[in-house]
């Protein structure tokens, strides 16, 4: 899923300070799972903002809501009846959801309440790691199921580099070397011969380098 972290409170305070009627909109999707923008976090933000503005002598309306998702029109559409009561919306959904609110309510000021980080997994509660860079052309079959685009700091296809040491990346001793992981896995699978054949340069057109992306599934469209 998409992983995000809540923006610093200071930053959100600064964003909304000139507005009087604030709606905080959380999302029950990915940001709930990584505890960044779900119902709980939205309420905590609401409380924190009320405390701040009250002690500062400012009277603001600060309301909280969540939507099932903010990346589907059916759910974002549910704000239709109440959104005009507010002059700003802080969306705690990921960047995609926040932008969809903008798409559907074009005259509303919408601010992001979280920093969207990556596509990743839950190692343990509170510990999330990146696994996929959405390059659009998956090569996991060739690398023992471990992605070098997401998990090698240099996104090498013919790794590891000369800075790989004791299974760690040269960037940080806490960072596992993606190619060490691939090597270990290919060894387990008996596929080490893959290491002798050069892999050709990647076609990056399917990733963001190819331009703004979309998927058109004609089989799903009427």
């Amino acid at each position: 899923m998409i992983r995000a972290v809540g923006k610093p409170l200071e930053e959100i305070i600064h964003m909304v300070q000139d507005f009087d009627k604030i709606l905080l909109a959380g999302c029950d999707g990915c940001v709930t799972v990584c505890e960044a923008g779900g119902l709980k976090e939205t309420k905590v933000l609401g409380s924190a903002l009320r405390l701040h503005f009250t002690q500062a002598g400012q009277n603001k309306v600060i309301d909280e809501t969540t939507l099932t998702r903010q990346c589907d029109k059916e759910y974002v559409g549910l704000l239709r009846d109440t959104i005009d009561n507010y002059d700003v919306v802080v969306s705690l959904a990921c960047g995609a959801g926040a932008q969809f609110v903008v798409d559907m309510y074009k005259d509303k000021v919408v601010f992001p309440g979280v920093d969207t980080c990556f596509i990743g997994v839950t190692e343990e509660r509170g510990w999330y790691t990146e696994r996929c860079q959405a390059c659009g052309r998956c090569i996991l079959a060739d690398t023992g199921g471990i992605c070098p685009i997401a998990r090698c700091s240099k996104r090498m296809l013919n790794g590891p580099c000369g800075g790989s040491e004791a299974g760690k990346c040269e960037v940080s001793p806490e960072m596992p070397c993606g190619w060490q992981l691939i090597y270990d896995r290919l060894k387990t699978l008996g596929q080490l011969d893959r290491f002798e054949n050069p892999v050709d340069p990647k076609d990056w057109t399917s990733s963001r380098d190819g331009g703004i992306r979309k998927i058109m599934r004609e089989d799903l469209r009427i």
Partner: protein
Amino acid sequence: MRLQYPPDVRIIQVPCTGKVDILHLLTAFEEGADGVFVAGCLEGDCHFIEGNLHAKRRVTRVKEILDQVGIGGDRLEMYNLSAGQGGRFAEIAREMDQKIRDLGPSPIRVAKGGGVQGEVAA
């Protein structure tokens, strides 16, 4: 034990401090509490194993938030003691009460034009 502790300490009982949520703590301050303390079992002795450890990290988080919003994180504290330490509880209550008196009324009460009577929630 019939020990004395200040009358403006309001006690809210929970089966375990692990039940105390970040929102409960923040709401207490929103409602005008001048101070809050969370009294949980001694570390390692939690009846529900880790409840007091969850409480500890939540208290830490709320202290940070209180600092960031101009209330002040020292209005919230976590204490650990056993159920049998009645004397210690009274001592904590007095200590916290004095500390909050020294800090003065919560900025929320001041902003809302609140009365003289203060409160510490435990």
